[in-house]
């Protein structure tokens, strides 16, 4: 499979590349690169408004991509998919177009302390603007979802619950279906950050029962700059446009305008058509392998990595059960800065992430500094984990 990913054949600092920063972004297979290339070579045009052949072809490709995305995540119809740049934009869209319109003083927004900044700061800011209160739920000591804490914070003032399906730091896979079910008992609207789950495991928004679901294409083999927001169709009538301008209007006069229907109402300006085409091709690639197979492969690598690190002196964040984790491990050594660990791994061609992983409140809550994070995907294997463990232990010996 590595042969499908041209970048994996390159060398870094004189060593074979071992790419273990998949939670940040994935690499792209030839099939996706070629689909984007082919789009530009054969039918590039602006979508929706043109009346020529190329415009029709580009529009058709764009809308077919929307259908592919809708089917992939179990949406009932393609209109429930809004194309956006990434998860961050998707969540901002919900915060501005929906939550900002109705939240008021006394209302509460409930989210996990482990949330990525992209599912935290939009809510923090919308609360500051509307006077609503931001309430956090905290994990158990093992990094699992704490139902007692969550239930104690849910009440009739809770208007919105925002939670990630898989933590980009702890690795924890959260029981989103049950979280949503509890939230619905109080009538709260639910937003799921699927950035770390959608690329790695089967996802079905209908089964989850969420109102909004956000994810990025670039973490699942697609180009950067394309992502999607699922909007349960009955939510649309409570939303205002996010941005205004071309492509999203129905009628325009000098001093007023009316809006196109959803999802176009939320896609102002020329969209990323080639990105959508690339995303659809990436989904086909993933489906051919099978999302269950990808998930099983990553659980195997989790198990192998946890076992390989078991005898060493490093601290691993999150659940000890490989099956409760997404395909990533965050770790740190006492007294050694993670940047130095990642720099020494980089000298060996092993690319991991170090820092706060856009989750500073979680690190503060855990009382720890920055951490190293290694994250795998369908093209990684046990040899890659060996290179990680050897390099990390070399860093430890050198820096201690």
């Amino acid at each position, binding site marked *: 499979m590595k042969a499908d990913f041209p970048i994996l054949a390159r060398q870094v600092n004189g060593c074979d590349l071992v790419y273990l920063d998949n939670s940040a972004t994935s690499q792209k297979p030839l099939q996706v690169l070629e689909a984007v290339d082919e789009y530009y070579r054969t039918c590039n045009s602006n979508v929706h408004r043109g009346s020529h052949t190329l415009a029709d072809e580009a529009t058709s490709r764009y809308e077919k991509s929307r259908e592919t995305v809708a089917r992939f995540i179990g949406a009932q119809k393609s209109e429930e998919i809004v194309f956006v740049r990434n998860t961050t934009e998707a969540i901002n869209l919900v915060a501005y177009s929906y939550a900002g319109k109705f939240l008021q003083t006394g209302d509460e927004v409930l989210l996990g302390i482990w949330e990525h900044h992209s599912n935290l700061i939009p809510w923090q800011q919308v609360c500051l603007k509307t006077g609503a209160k931001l309430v956090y739920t905290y994990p158990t000591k093992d990094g699992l979802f704490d139902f007692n804490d969550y239930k104690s914070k849910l009440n009739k003032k809770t208007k919105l619950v925002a939670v990630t399906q898989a933590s980009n730091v702890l690795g924890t896979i959260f029981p989103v279906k049950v979280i949503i079910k509890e939230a619905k008992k109080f009538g709260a609207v639910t937003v799921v950050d699927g950035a770390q789950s959608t690329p790695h495991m089967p996802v079905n928004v209908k089964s989850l029962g969420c109102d909004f679901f956000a994810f990025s294409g670039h973490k699942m083999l697609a180009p950067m700059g394309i992502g999607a927001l699922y909007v349960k169709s009955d939510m649309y009538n409570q939303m205002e446009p996010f941005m205004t301008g071309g492509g999203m209007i129905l009628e325009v006069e000098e001093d007023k305008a009316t809006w196109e229907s959803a999802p176009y109402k939320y896609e102002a300006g020329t969209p990323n058509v080639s990105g959508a085409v690339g995303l659809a091709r990436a989904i086909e690639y993933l489906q051919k392998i099978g999302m269950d197979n990808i998930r099983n492969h990553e659980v195997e690598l989790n198990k192998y990595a946890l076992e390989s690190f078991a005898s060493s002196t490093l601290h691993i964040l999150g659940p000890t059960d490989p099956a409760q984790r997404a395909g990533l491990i965050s770790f740190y050594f006492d007294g050694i800065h993670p*940047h130095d660990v990642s*720099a020494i791994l980089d*000298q060996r061609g092993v690319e991991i992430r170090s820092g706060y992983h856009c989750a500073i409140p979680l690190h503060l809550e855990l009382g720890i*500094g*920055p951490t190293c994070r290694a994250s795998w995907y369908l093209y990684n294997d046990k040899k890659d984990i060996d290179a990680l463990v050897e390099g990390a232990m070399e860093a430890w010996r050198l820096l201690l």
Partner: protein
Amino acid sequence: MSDQIYREQFMEIYKSNANFGQMDFPTVTADQVNFICGDKMTLQLKIVEDKVVDAKFTGVACAVSKTSASIITEEIKGKSVNDLKKLTEQDMLDLIKFDLTASRQQCALLCYHALKKALENYGKKR
């Protein structure tokens, strides 16, 4: 990053912990955050008659920022505030000498940016 970085000379300074720690009654203190990684360094200066007589730093710091801070704090001792104000980023990189990528240069310059801020604070104080 060059594979030369974590070599003997660098590691010697890193492990020396030179000037790492806190002093009592500093004249000025400044915090500086590395915008790339969020790491924070606190620099303390003791200044007597417009001359830095002692310098110490603390914080969450990688080996590059810590080693560079050890070198910079050692260098500025005995120098006048006016001379220190003239120092540029390039002067600091020339002083540190390690071969660094652009992102690791920010680590190396964290102490320098804290120094700039500390000198500004000193100016305001006077």
